Every structure is written in C-alpha cells, then in structure tokens.
C-alpha cells in the first residue's frame, strides 16, 4: 500500500469533499445546509444514514454507523461521515480497517468479541438460518481458532492477528461511494 500514489491535489480533494457533502446533504436536506463551508454543527441520525444505498443491504449497517459516531448512538457529523467512507475506502490501510472492523463486530462495546457478539454476527450473516447447535459450534470453533490467549473471547490482538492473514478481508471490507 505504501508505494501507491495517494496524494490529493487540492482540486481533487475539494471535488471529493463536495461530492461527499452532496451525499451527506441528500440524506437529510432539512438538517444539513447545502453550504458546508460555514461548518454547521449538525449531525444526521442513524436511521437516515443506514438508508444509504451503500449501506442499506449491509447486515451490519447499524454497527458500522455506530462505531464511527463519536457519541456511540449513531449520529454522524460530516467529518465522521467522511471518516467512515475513508476507512472503508479501497486505499485505507489494513490495520486501520482492522480496528474498525473489530469495533463493528463488537456489538456490546466491551472491547472483546465474546461469544455473544459472535452469535449476533453469525445470525446477521445467515439471516438466522442455522440451527442453534450449528451456531454454537461455529462460534466455539471461531473462538478456538482465533483465540491466542485462551480467555475464550477475542481481544483486538487476536482479531488483528487473524484478520491480517485473511486473504479477502481487504477486498470485502470496502465500500465504494
């Protein structure tokens, strides 16, 4: 990633911002003024953001928005909004993505992926098609595979260790806007 040319020119940067802000504005025209140069202090609630076409089908949409919002409730300011798409962009580094992925999957925000989190993740992934025994098995296996320190939950270190070796993490944890 390091040797990729990722410099913005000012014009490009602005173009991106204008575009992004356009998207941001669209979400809640009544809340967000069109002119973002005056730095309005406004936030868009979660319910509006998860309706973006990019997020609409994502089983983790609520979690994504929540983990990027500073208040944890899913209200996003424009900067956080930009942040979200920057982390999910193609060029964001793996470590950064890993951090946010961890936050997304950490449903109960206790900084560990415990079995409960995994069950939730799994049920969202499969639309609860698996039987409880299967869910149980899968969660146990997951923990068994990735848990290096033996506390039967996944810390960020465990998670990172696992995710950095995943072949398609980068290509799937990625949203194009």
């Amino acid at each position, binding site marked *: 990633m*390091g040797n990729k040319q990722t410099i913005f020119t000012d014009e490009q940067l602005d173009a991106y911002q204008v575009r992004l802000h356009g998207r941001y504005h669209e979400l809640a025209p009544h809340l967000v003024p069109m002119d973002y140069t005056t730095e309005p202090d406004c936030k868009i609630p979660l319910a509006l953001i998860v309706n973006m076409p990019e997020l609409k089908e994502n089983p983790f949409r609520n979690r994504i928005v929540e983990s990027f919002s500073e208040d944890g409730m899913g209200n996003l300011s424009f900067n956080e909004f930009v942040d979200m798409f920057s982390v999910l962009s193609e*060029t964001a580094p793996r470590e950064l993505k890993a951090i946010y992925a961890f936050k997304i999957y950490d449903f109960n925000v206790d900084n560990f992926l415990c079995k409960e989190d995994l069950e939730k993740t799994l049920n969202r992934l499969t639309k609860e098609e698996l039987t409880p025994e299967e869910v149980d098995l899968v969660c146990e296996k997951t923990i068994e595979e990735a848990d290096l320190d033996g506390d039967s939950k996944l810390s960020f270190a465990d998670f990172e260790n696992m995710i950095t070796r995943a072949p398609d993490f980068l290509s799937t944890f990625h949203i194009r806007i």
Partner: protein
Amino acid sequence: MPRKGAVQADDVSVDIDDEQSDSDDGTTKRRANRRQAGGGRGGGGGAKGRGRGKKAESDEEEEEDEAPKGRRGAQNKRPAKKRGGKKDDDDDDSEEEAPKNKRGGAANKRKGGKGRGGDDEDSPAEKGGKGRKGGKKGGKEEEDSKGKKGDGKGKDEKNKKKKKKDDSSSDSNSNSDEEEDSMSEGEMARLMEEVEEKKKLIANIRNKPWRMKRRLVLLREAQQFVDKFEGALGKGKGRKWYAYKVMMTKKWIKFQRDFENFRTACIPWERKIKEVESHFGSSVASYFIFLRWMYGMNLVLFGLTFGLVVMPEVLMGLPYGSIPRKTVPRAEQDTAQDYAVLMDFNGYCKYSVLFYGYYNDQRTIGLLKFRLPLAYLMVGIGTFGYSLMLVIRTMAKNADVGGGDGDEGEFTFAWKMFTSWDYLIGNAETADNKYASITTSFKESIVDEQENQKDENIHLRRFLRVLANFLITCSLGGSGYLIYFVVKRSQDFATRDDLSWYEKNELELIMSLLGLVCPPLFETIAELEDYHPRIALKWQLGRIFALFLGNLYTFLFALFDEVNTKLEEEQSIKNASIWAMKEYYANFSRLVNDSESTPPPMNPADVIRGPCWETAVGIEFVKLTVSDIQVTYLTILIGDFARAVIVRFLNYCWCWDLEAGFPSYGEFDISGNVLGLVFNQGMIWMGAFYAPGLVGINVLRLLSSMYYQCWAVMATNVPHERVFKASKSNNFYMGLLLLVLFLSLLPVVYTIMSLPPSFDCGPFSGKEKMFDVIMETIDLDLPAFMGTLFSYAANPGLIIPAVLLMVLAIYYLNSVSEAYQNSNMELKKKMQMARDEEKNRRNNTDSTNQVMKDLEDLLPNRSLAPPAPPEPEKPPEPEGKPTKTRGGAAGKGVDLQKDVSLASSNPNAREPVTRAPGARGRGQPPGGRGRGGPPPR
C-alpha cells in the same frame, strides 16, 4: 533589482518578529534546529510570523506546523536528539488540537472561503510589516522575479498553478522564494529533507489511523509546506506533471477495475453458476463449472472439425448426387425422407456430411487444392491431441491451485465469520444470494467439522464398508453380464426383419435403464459406509464410472462384432463389383475399342455398394448420443420437474406432508450428472472420427443443458441435506475424463491403424490402411529427403531409445515431485507445530508474564519499559477514538505496542521451563510481583 532588496530587508524584520513569537511557544529547539542559516528560513517564519497579528490564524498555523513536526519525529523513530523535548510538546499539542481541530479543519477545508479570507486578513499585517501592497499581488511579483532566476521554466509552470490556487500558499511562497539567494548548501539539503518528509506524510496520510478532521488539517498543512519549499528547492516543476500522473494512475486503476468487471461479465454463465452455488453449495456448482469447461473444449473441437473438414467438403467438394457415396441408393429413396427414418439417422441423414461415408477420396479438392483426406485424418488425431493436452494442462493448473480437500488451515470459521460479507453489496437480490451463499458455506464447513469430530466403532464401520463394496461389485457384475447378453441378442435380431419396436431398441433401453437404476442403488448401499459426503461422492463416481465403463465396453465389443460382419460382407461385395467392373470394361473395350475407362452409364443411385462400416459405426454413436440426450432431459422433466409440481400442489390435499415426507423434492444428482457428461464426451471422442457432425450435436447439447439444468436446479431441486464443499480443484472429474479419453482413444486408434477402410466410401477409400494418406503425402508433396527422414524416424532403432528416454524422464520427474511433496508436508507440519506452540505460549501468557515481570523486577533498569505500554494502550478501544487520535505518535504507536507485547511474551516462552510452575500465578505475593511500574522510576 532594487525591489527585491527591499523585500529582503523587510523579511529580516519579519524574521525577528517570527523568532520572538516562536520562542513564546517554547519550541526554540526546533527553531534553532531549523534555521541554521540565518535568513534562510526566514520566509517560512515570515509566513508564520505574519499571521501573529491575528491570533486565531497564527495559532492555527503554528499548530499545524508543529504537530506534524513532532509526528514526523515519531514517525521516523529518530531517537529524538534535538527534538526529544519537542516530542512532549507535541503530545500536548495534539491534545490541544482536539478542540482546536474543528477550527483548523474548517479553515483548511474551506480553501476558497475562509482560507482566502484569512489571507486578506493577513495581508494588512504584512503591509504593516513590509510595506508591500497585497499578499496576492506581492506573491505574483515575487514569483515573477523568481522566474528570472535559474530554473525559469519550472517556476513558471508553478507560477501558473499558484495563481490558480489559493493565495495563501503563493503568498508564503513568495516569501520563501526571496531567500533563495541567501540559502546555503546545508540549508538546501535540510529543507529538501523536510520537504521529502512532508511529501511522505502526504503520501501516507491515508494510512494514518486518525480521524478525518485531523487528517485534513495535517494534509493541508503539509501540502502548504511542500508548496512553499518545493519551489524554493527548484523541485517544483514536476508538481503539475505529478498531479497529472496521479490523476492518470487513478483513471488507470478505475479502468482496470472496469476492465476486470467486463472480463468477469464475459465469462459465460458466471452469474448463473454463482447463483446456483449460493443456494446449493460449491459441490453442485462444480458440476456446472465442469459443464462450462466441457463446452469450451467442445467449441474448439467443433471449430477444428467444421473448419477443416465439414466446411471444405460442403463448399469445395462434389455436390450431393454426383457420385454413389453421396447419393441415397435407389432402394432406400422412397423412405429416405420419412421422419422415423431420419430420426434413425438413415435416409438422407446417412448420406450427408454428418457421416464419414459422404466424404470423397479425391486427393485435393477445389481451387485451393485442399487435401481433404489428409485433413480428415489430421483432425481426427488432432481432436485427441488437443483434448489430451487440455485435460492434462487443466489438471496441472488445478493441482497448482491446491488440490487440498477443502481444509484451509487455521482460520476457517473466523475468516468466514468476519470477512465473508462483501461490504460492496448494495443490491437486494445480490444480498439475498450472499446470505444464502454464506449460510451454505457455513453449512459446508460445519459438515467438515462434524466429520472431524466423529469417532465411532471402527470395526463395525469397516465391516459395513466391506459389505457395501461386495454388494456393489455384485451388482456391477450383474449389470455387465446383462449388457453382454443383450448385445448378443441384438446381433441375432440384426439378421431378422420382423422386429418389434422393443426388440429394435432393446440395447439402448437396457443401457438407459441400468443407468437409471444402478446409481440410486449404489447410493443406497453407500449409506452403509458413512463416509464424509465429499469422499462418498468420489466413491459413488468411481462406482458408477465402473458401471458405465462396463456398458461402454460391452457396447464397443458388440460394435466390433458388427464391424467384422460388415467387413466380410463388404469384401464379398467388393469382389463382386470389381468382377462386374472388369466384365463391363471387357465388354466395353471389345465393342468400342477404347480401353480408357469410361465409367458405366449408371445412375449413382443404382451402383452396387458396400455396407460402409464406418458410417454404420458413426450412426451408432450418434444414435446413442441423441438417445442419451433425450433420456437425460426426460429424466429431469419427469423425475425433477413433475415431482416438484406434484409435491408442491398436491400437498394441499394429501394425507401426509409431501414436502417433508416421502417424495419430497429432488436433490441435484451430482455424480450422475458428472458421469453422464464424462461418458457423453467419451462417445463424442470415439464417434467424432466416423461422424464429424457429432461434435456439432454435442455443442448444441451442452449449450442447451447448461440453461436447462440451471433452470431445473433452481426451480425444482432442494439443496442437499448435508451441503458439502467440493474439493477445490475439479481434478477428480478431470481424472475421470482423462481415463475416458484414454479409453476412447484405443478403439479409434485401433481402427485407424489396423482395419482396412471401406472400398467405396469415405476419404480413405481405395487405400489399404487409413494412415496411408500420410505416406502418400510424404511421398508426393514433400521433398524426397523428408521421406527418408521420416523413414529414419520411424526406425525402431530410434523409437525404442526415445521411448526409453521418455520413461527415464518420467521416472526422474516423478521422483523429484515426490521429494517436493515430502518437503512440503514437512513444512506444513512445522508450521502447524509452530502455530500450536505459539498458541500454547500465549495461552500461558498471563501466568508466565508474571514470572517475566518478577524477573524484570530483579533487573534494575529495564524493568519498566516493556510492561508499561501495553496497559495504557489497551483501553483505547472503548470509543475507539482515543487510540488513534491520541497517538499522533500512535500511527506507529499501535504497531509499537504490538511489538512490545510480542516481545514481552516471547521471552516468557523460554522462561517457564526453568521456573517452577508453582511460583507464578495470581497468588503471587504482591511484593514479588511488583506490578512494578512506579518505584524504579
């Protein structure tokens, strides 16, 4: 340049101002560091100092300037000698930044808006200090003057750009430019370095785990810095070009992506197959992938046959009805157009390009002197050659991909759990498919896992497996005998005329029936064995393969019997016709006195002709193929579709639950379909030589069955009860195909090499053996020395050593590959061991860590360093935010922390051995453990 001098003078004053302000900030160290050559750095300072008047602006700039500095320091991991103190500052800075950030971000974002405003505000201050007119104007002028200096061109270029862009940079730029004169060498170098660093920062800004606001601030700042000084160093000329390049790279990436999409879209049926895969699992999809592959191969074969054999004959050969072999005999002409006859591939079908007999034995045809007989033989051989190559190549490639039977190593479930959802999906339908496919893949892995955990009575299982194999062998033998019996009977029937429909089609019926009955039987028996479904599928494939093989070979033997009787018949007819010819010529020459051959004035339809066994064989294969198609399609229609309809709609008025109970919906029969495909292909290979049209029929068949079966699967079937993962490569299928290819090669080669071709039909008529065509070509068309060359090459004295050499090569390569395989296994084992070890070590980490800590406490100085960092670093997650922001230094910080924690656990691994286990653990006396942090410091 008087003007210039004045400005410089001004600069100095500004400089001083700047210095003061900086020292206020307590960052003198850095400043000292920076400004080695007195006025040199002034410009930058000036730019900054200028702002001093306006507090807000200046603050901002200061902050911008400093924060990255420190960051850079941290980044470079330069043991901050001079900047050591600075680092602490920086931390403060970054904390301060948080609140300020907003402002900073805002200012920076609004390049046009507030940024410009800021400039305007700046300019008065400047005016006061320097007596210049306005930031903008001054900037331009400066740049002009700069343009006169050394590297005019680059500057000009930059100049233009600057004008376009916001003035703040050009403004400061102007200042920096002025100092160029006074810049010393060392200054230049240092500046260059800084610019480089900034550039690096710009390039890597995306990789920094900071919040957007902060990033924007830094980016702006760094960019401005670069803008400012790059020009001063005369390196700015590439700026525009660089931007252009970046833009082009972006465009290029986008193009590549589009192209990739386009290419994926070009893969035929990719979407269909993916859809099937998502609902039925990779095992079912593997069949369709195989089908697609087969279709591709057959297209090539079709191209070869039609391009080189059929089309030339149609376009350039003699037309229908010109010679006997291209004419329906008088006796058959009445019925030649009947539907039933045509469906049996008799009548007009028999005397068409579809079959061997139609082709003429002219050495060359048409204007192009196309050597059709030679082409015919070559295409026949080439078909096999190409197929062999392709199959083997594909197998090799698949083996490369990793023939591993689905075990992906360490993180199967974890990866599935965390990386299987594709965040790009924004379409409801795709999302549904994805849900299905994820569920399916989980189920696949669960099956694998359950299989791993299973342990039962091994003796019972062994017994059952033997029993199952015994039963299956019995039924295989039985069906083989049945086929043999039917073939014999059909030979009897062949001599009789009064045949009922059943008797005529007995052979096909029996074969189809066996094909229908046996596989389910085998499957039922295989239940006894209780294999993993993937392995069970392979057994099933093997067994049905054996069954079909028996069928095939009994069929072939029957065919050869037929061929032999035809050959005898032909011999007599040939003799008779030769005799008749002679008779005719004798009479003719006696009457007309012309010994030159004027053929008898006979309608080609009336000529006596031989049975032409090649065409008969071709017809046999075509019939078999067509009946196979019919049976397959009907089976799907009745066995799957009708069943599904009945189950679905009768369920409302039935006494038990049809859907869950007895008939239920059909499952997709992978083994049957794969083998059907493989054997069908065998038929094609064998038959293609005698019926060039067969390849065309097969292409149509594959094409239609792709759509038909895809539809049938999606519409009427349910996923397997235990969805299992197909082995990654299709190599088992390919292996079967290779076997069939080899088997079908044998009879064809045998006929080409040893049976005499018919005397009055086909491209080889009149020759002793088919391959005489090659000899003829060598003799007549190639220069003489080639003939001798070939005769040498065909010398056994040369061939035997060559074969020997090949055998040796095979042996050698084989042993080499085996050695590689061994070392591979070894490595895998080692990796596994290393992993286990690491895991164990980490498992014990908590307890061992304490031992480590104890040890560290004993060592006076080093004790604190490692354990301290991990503790504070961990918490950041809660709102996630702090980690990243906090570590302005933390860009690296995260990694550092990791390193540290690794480092601290590593030594532990060795430790515990020497230590008695009792001593560690939570129960450790507080003193010993020390948790140590505070005291040593």
